[in-house]
């Protein structure tokens, strides 16, 4: 670990490793997110039955399950630092930007693990037309990137408020609506076999703009 404040790739990598290690020790965030996803999925599947040909509803349900399961845990990375009083220490050894990028990388990994479990389960329980794998994976990847970028940024804001958990969903929802719109439309499009280029461009542009905005704003977030 370098002694000065550093925003180098090394610092980002160290933060990412530290996040993974502390998550691995308790597995609290991941297990609660997975349980949340599985319970929601069970409830959805139980009440709707098999609606194999309704790709519009299937796409919406898939992303709603994913987004809310993710919301239950993505703010966790910053909240844990504040509640454990370790934020000050972390800021002594790394710049706000590298902390943020490290945590963004962790959230992205977290989402991927969540999706690797949830999406196959969703496809098994709910069915649906055959996937167009290339388009489906592109929508999933870019959708997760945009979701992680929005949730990490809002999580950093939320961690400094009272009643963090309750506020997170409400405050991040407006940021997530463009992601939801693009991802749902793209998922439905690949099932129906139509091109999803417009949706992919929307998701990529949104993720890129959010990331750029994050880099500008993180310095203002932690000052006291």
């Amino acid at each position, binding site marked *: 670990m370098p002694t000065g404040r550093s925003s180098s790739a090394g610092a980002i990598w160290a933060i990412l490793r530290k996040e993974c290690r502390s998550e691995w020790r308790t597995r609290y965030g991941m297990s609660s997110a997975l349980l949340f996803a599985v319970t929601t999925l069970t409830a959805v599947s139980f009440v709707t039955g098999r609606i194999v040909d309704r790709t519009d509803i299937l796409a919406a349900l898939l992303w709603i399950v994913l987004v809310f399961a993710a919301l239950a845990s993505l703010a966790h990375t910053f909240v844990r630092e504040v509640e454990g009083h370790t934020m000050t220490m972390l800021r002594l050894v790394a710049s706000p930007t590298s902390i943020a990028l490290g945590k963004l990388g962790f959230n992205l990994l977290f989402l991927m693990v969540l999706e690797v479990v949830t999406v196959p389960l969703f496809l098994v329980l709910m069915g649906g037309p055959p996937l167009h794998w290339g388009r489906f994976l592109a929508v999933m990847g870019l959708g997760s990137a945009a979701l992680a970028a929005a949730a990490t940024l*809002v999580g950093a*804001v939320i961690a*400094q*408020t009272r009643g963090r958990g309750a506020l997170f969903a*409400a405050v991040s929802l407006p940021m997530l609506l463009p992601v939801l719109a*693009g991802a749902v439309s793209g998922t439905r499009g690949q099932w129906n076999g139509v091109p999803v280029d417009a949706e992919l461009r*929307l998701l990529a542009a949104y993720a890129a703009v959010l990331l750029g905005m994050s880099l500008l704003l993180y310095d*203002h977030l932690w000052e006291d």
Partner: protein
Amino acid sequence: MILRVLLFLWLAAGMIAGFLWAPLVPVLGATTRVFYFHFPVALVTTLAFGWSMLHSALYLLRRDLGHDDHAAGAAELGLLFCVVATVSGSMWAKAMWGAYWNWDPRETSIFFLFLIYAAYVALRAAVDGEERPARLAAVYSCIAFVAVPFLIFVVPRIYFSLHPDPLFNTRGKPDIDPRIMLVATWMFVGLTALFFWLLSLRVRLGRIERARQDA
């Protein structure tokens, strides 16, 4: 005092002119009249939220709590105008389209604006201290500023492609009656003045409260 009376008379004159002087548009019939209220209010809503974002960015640059008073006040007042615009537009939609709500692009964008600023106000309320709520709210305002163009311009294009544009477009043709434009502009000027008057009260209130706490 005299200015407030003038503002009241100005708005009253606009309302009366909307009912008695300006003509009705053929397709819209009597629902034309909501235009003199709904359209200026929606414009003032956009103006208020724009004002809030501008002052949030200025706050982050200059760290002057006066900018924060402007940002918070404009957001709160903008929410008020936003509700009025949404409700009046919704009543018009019931009369013309047969449903209070059908996710038309305009309805979508104003509803998203409402969500963002409701969250902004909730966020401010949940942060302790004097400087910190201002800073966090300003950061949130800047993030929201990223989402707004996507919500208003991009998402309706790819997502609600079946919905028609509102009737404002067909009415926006050059043959619109000048009296209608005059009354709408008149009301816009009046309501903008109302907004800035209320905002100045809110800003003064913020300054007084801070001075009292410092004393």
